[in-house]
């Protein structure tokens, strides 16, 4: 049985190979990129591209190994029927003892490929068409984007440019002002010579002396100065609010477009996996690059930015340059906050303070991080003292008065957070 099977399969493979050679040979001479074995129907290729983007891209690329193998020439390696079966239910094919499938499964660390029963045979064929089409294109090895701070550096350039414009405008305005003053004095002098001929009211204007003090004391001047001062002060307050953490909704552009939505949402990677300090101490820890590389030594292409985003991670790791992330949650230095106390002891979930991180493409500050917000939570939340001998006596003492709130255990005291 198995022998005939193998012979059959190899025959088919050989046939396919031969066919593909035959088909692709003349195409080498053509200017247009090679069309696939299934016919170079651009509509089909486009449909395949769409489907590939939606279903395969997370784990596969045409030219590179990502989670799964590079798919270029898959049509040459395997018959289309096998491909369809494998896509519909890869585990079934492996379980059937198919040697190629088993080898593939072992080679990629026994990672199960997701089954796609919803894809029709035609759809799979169009994906293959797209792969064939894409496989014929040359791999573009362009210069890789720099690792960090591109958005910032651009902004900086712009800032410098607008600064020059601002200075030019100011210079022009000052020149206009000087010219106006000169005009005024020339006119005045001219009119003064003909003083007798002027009407009484006009004479008054001409003889009027410019009084600096009067101008300074004038309501108009004072209110202008006042408005400038108030607006500057407001601006300062606004910026200083940042230092005290009042910056709810702050979602800065990061040097690497890391998506929590993808990692935490779609792939359901546990927060702890990267933020290793969260149950140990004060800091939750921004993951070090070696943690990124646990996966990204294999996964080199992402669904949104392709290789660009991940390349920055890999480059930074290889060149031993840390990534300068922009800090989102800026608790002021005078407040001591400890993640372990809240997560490990208190059993608070991450999203309670950080919001639905798993839906955020770019992380933004979910909570106000003000003292009022902290204190309010301490007032409302009961101490998580279950099965914790530390709290046994306290809870017993408090049992008649209802649940022991954090506030009742000193949660509002200054030196809990400020020292």
């Amino acid at each position: 049985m198995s022998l005939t099977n193998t012979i059959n399969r190899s025959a088919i493979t050989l046939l396919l190979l031969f066919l593909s050679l035959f088909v692709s040979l003349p195409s080498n001479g053509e200017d247009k990129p090679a069309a696939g074995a299934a016919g170079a129907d651009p509509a089909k290729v486009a449909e395949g591209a769409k489907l590939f983007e939606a279903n395969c891209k997370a784990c596969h690329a045409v030219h590179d190994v990502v989670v799964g193998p590079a798919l270029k020439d898959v049509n040459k390696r395997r018959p289309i029927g096998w491909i369809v079966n494998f896509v519909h239910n890869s585990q079934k094919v492996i379980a059937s003892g198919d040697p190629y499938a088993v080898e593939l499964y072992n080679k990629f660390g026994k990672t199960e490929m997701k089954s796609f029963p919803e894809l029709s045979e035609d759809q799979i064929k169009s994906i293959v068409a797209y792969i064939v089409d894409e496989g014929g294109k040359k791999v573009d090895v362009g210069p890789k984007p720099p690792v960090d701070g591109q958005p910032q550096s651009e902004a900086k350039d712009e800032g410098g440019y607008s600064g020059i414009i601002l200075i030019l405008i100011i210079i022009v305005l000052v020149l206009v002002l000087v010219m106006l003053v000169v005009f005024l004095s020339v006119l005045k002098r001219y009119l003064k010579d003909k003083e007798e001929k002027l009407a009484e009211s006009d004479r008054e204007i001409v003889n009027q002396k410019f009084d600096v003090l009067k101008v300074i004391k004038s309501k108009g001047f004072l209110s202008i100065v006042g408005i400038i001062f108030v607006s500057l002060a407001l601006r300062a307050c606004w910026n200083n609010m940042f230092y005290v953490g009042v910056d709810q909704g702050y979602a800065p552009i990061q040097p690497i477009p890391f998506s929590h939505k993808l990692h935490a949402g779609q792939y359901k990677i546990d927060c702890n996996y990267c933020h290793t300090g969260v149950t140990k101490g004060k800091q939750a820890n921004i993951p070090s690059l070696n943690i990124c590389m646990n996966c990204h030594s294999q996964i080199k292409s992402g669904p949104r930015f392709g290789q660009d985003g991940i390349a920055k991670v890999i480059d930074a790791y290889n060149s031993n340059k840390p990534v300068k992330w922009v800090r989102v949650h800026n608790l002021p230095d005078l407040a001591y906050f400890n993640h372990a106390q809240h997560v490990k002891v208190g059993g608070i979930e991450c999203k309670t303070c950080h919001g639905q991180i798993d839906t955020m493409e770019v992380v933004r500050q979910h909570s106000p991080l003000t003292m009022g917000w902290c204190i309010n939570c301490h007032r409302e939340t009961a101490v998580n003292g279950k099965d914790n001998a530390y709290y046994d006596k306290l809870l017993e003492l408090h049992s008649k008065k209802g649940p022991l709130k954090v506030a009742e255990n000193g949660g509002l005291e200054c030196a809990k957070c400020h020292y």
Partner: protein
Amino acid sequence: MKDNNKKYWKGIEELSNDPEFLKHAHNEFPEFLSVKEKGSSEASDAPDRRDFLKLLGFSVAAVSLAACEAPVKKVIPYVNKPVDVDPGIANWYASTYQEGGEYCSILVKTREGRPIKIEGNKLSPITMGGTSARVQASVLSLYDTERLEFFVENGKQIKVKSIAEYAPLDRKIIDKLAAAQASGKSIRIVSQTILSPTTKKAIEEFKAKYPATEHVMYDVLSAEGILKANEISLGQRIIPSYNFGAADVIVSFGADFLGTWISPIEYAKQYSKTRKLSAHKKTMSKHYQIESNLSLTGCNADTRLPIKPSEEGLYVAALYNALGFGGLSTKAPNHEVIKKAATDLLKAKGKSLVVSGSNDPYVQLLVNKINSELGNYGKTIDVSTPSFQKQGSDEAILKFIEDAKSGQVGAVIFYGANPVYDHPKGEELKEALKKISLKISFNDRMDETSSEVDYVCPDLHFLESWNDAEPKKGFFSLTQPTITPIFKGNRAAQESLLIWSGNKTDYYTYLENNWKSRLTGGNFQELWDKTLHDGLYSGKTSELHVTPGHSETEAYAAISDTASVGAFHTGGSSTPNVNLSEVEDNINRTYKTNSGIELSLYYKVGLGSGSLSAGNNPWLHELPDPVSKATWDNYLAIPKKMANEMDIAQGDVVALTVDGKNTGIEVPVLIQPGQANNTASLALGYGRTKAGKCGNEVGKNAYPLIKVKGGRLDLNAGVVTFAKTGDERKIAQTQTHHTVMARPIIQDASLAEYQKDAGAGRYKPMIHTNLYGEKKPTEITTWYEHEKPNHLWGMSIDLNSCIGCGACVVACQSENNVPVVGRKEVLNRREMHWIRIDRYYSSDAETDKTGEYFESESGVKDLEIAAENPTVTFQPMLCQQCNHAPCESVCPVAATTHSSEGLNQMTYNRCIGTRYCANNCPYKVRRFNWFKYFENEEFDKNVSMNNFLGRMVLNPDVTVRSRGVMEKCSFCVQRIQEGKLKAKMEKRRPIDGEIVTACASACPTDAIIFGDRNDTESRLHKDNVVENAERSYAVLEELNVQPNILYLTKIRNS
């Protein structure tokens, strides 16, 4: 109930009610913000109020403008996070502090790879978890910007990217060493005492390569007298192990064993055990101190006898005679104290200890004889476990200087030694160095010696290096790096020596191999790992075989199995063999009474020799001297009587003439109660010229005054005369800054009284009420009680154990980011220490008169008598964490509040600086930030906040306070929070002793116990409620502020 009528005084100025003192006594704050009203007649350059307001307006505008740029903060994680390092979590490493023979087994706290705090290692049988101010402060020296970054060749730094680039320089040095070897002249390695056997092995290797090499070890704090005496009488040049803990009677002739003598941390631990009292132990040791200047040890003595230095030998002889072991025909003074001491000693044969700080071998021989007659050898003195902390030889260094002068030295290597500064013949050496063709120094900075050499190859700081130590025979510990070398151009001195000897092994491998060759039993890796983890070798010492070439250890024969049980052996010791007639002759020849004023030199407890990195450590300079409470200076201490006779006032600058020679030293005078009449004393370790920013030009260098006599150094400098120069230099003392106006702050009793009534000496105030009669202060209150269901943090301070050493002060400074303010601001009474050690004098000779009386003739006399030989009590004073805190109720913005755990909390961000709290604090423990001490060039001596390197020592868990806010002891709330969190995470209650404050953990005598009063199993509860309930008192109990700190009465065995 007995009222304590004894009067306590903190300084002469308080006793005599000096007008200056009175002025300050009522004004805690020296001056208010210097702003005058317009039109005020006061001629001052202070800005007027309107200018002030204008400036204020301007600065508001400036700040608003400056804030226009939106801030973006970066957060930069590791590329490769080290497995053990988690940001925000401290790592602890066991290591060993060793500098100039000083030893302390330590734990180093590191945060994100930076050492920030040093604590004692409780596993050590020698230091037993104790530390000293110098050990605590050594972490700051690591971040000293004066350290050399690179090797120096002829005064020029050679910048390199890695240490390997020094290969050409090494070749040059090797060639020169070879030339020196070939020249027939000798090569010398000059170091202080080296405790490390492996370092010695490396030196041996160097010697093997260059056979002309001699290793010269010397001690700045020389113990030549003891070494010599033991060489004569025991046949071994050793310092024995002393056990003050087993001595019921201690007689010390000028040995400051709690402060500076040989191994003070170890002795303080032992000594304090004999001083502690409880319901189960109602006896304590009796301590006599016979000395000329009031030392830290003298302050703690039960009976103290001030003598002149020239009488020292005679007094030792007098004691020998009084003991009745035989008559020495010396002109022995017959003093009551000596007779009493003799009687007590005879009662405690085999349980007593006589020590002397003298460097005269004949005095030490007589001391040996006394101890031998008393049967103390094998009981309180252990010859079989000698201490290696002093191995230096005065003769060797003197010979080196002579040889250098006569051109017999071809090359010299200075290793952790600065003899140009710290040797009395330093100037001669400096000249003689010019005759030596190759001079190398391993010192970490261009100090006095390094500036005179050809090559400086800076050694690593001990916190950056690998090493081992053998402070006592058979006791080994390891030093491990807690940070990678800060400067890439520094190299371990041992590695340099090895390279120059042609051995390419790095020092770590060399060290490990050396241990491997010694540790034969068991699995080496396991033993090594455990030793590294514990910081010390705790296995059987038979596993340690003597290293070939380690001559010192070899000399001491086999090591016994029991050495690891404790740092002390009893029984079976050899006894000294003393030729009495020789001693008699020499004492008669040396000690002749004279009528002149004698100058004795001494070392400061904080600064020590001051000759290496400690000399540039601002924490040590600002640590008030335990006795005089002076900072940032040395001074000539003279007794009150002499000051009166010579009409010299404190602060008058005098020029010193010693033995008829003008020394060129001009120092201010300090009137020191307890200083023996016709004596004066001056501290060594000051007057550095090339230590760095903090140490240069602080005080005057007294090292040239050390007398070189018969091949040894003598701190008794001879007869001194001094004359006023007319200048005045105020001494920055802290003692009377926060005075307490003659209230019963110190409560004390004699041992006899205590044995009759455990509550002896207690002052128990009663408050009269109209309705209920006499009531205890705690029974009447207008306050609602705070509930404290969880913890109630408290502290017990045993005045009997506290020796006043100041380790806690520096530990607190290091833990809590306390700024250094400098001499000028200390003079302005603005020091910032959160814990201070109050030193009180008292005397039976006092009258109850005050004020003008002391200006009368009989008053002056009384004052002299009172100051002649006062009794001293130390009292650590810190925030008492009052449960009914007076500071809390006066704060207009609720910046200081009470917690449910009994803590008096200080919230810096709320504080607006009214200083009402400090005015209302009965203990005067609140400190106001008069200035911005960080990032402020005016305070450049506050190095931990004013330069990039120094800032690395800051504790990241404690806020650096800004100008205009009040601060005070927080009971190390950051440690409490950390400890509680650890317990919660492990789902248990905190274990007693797990959470301790920095001061309690640093204390070498366990005088401070910190704990939870709600925990009835805690040591604190046992101490204050069970064992020492009667002795426990709250300072100023009558105020009913209910402090969480209780003190135990001071009991004197007099």
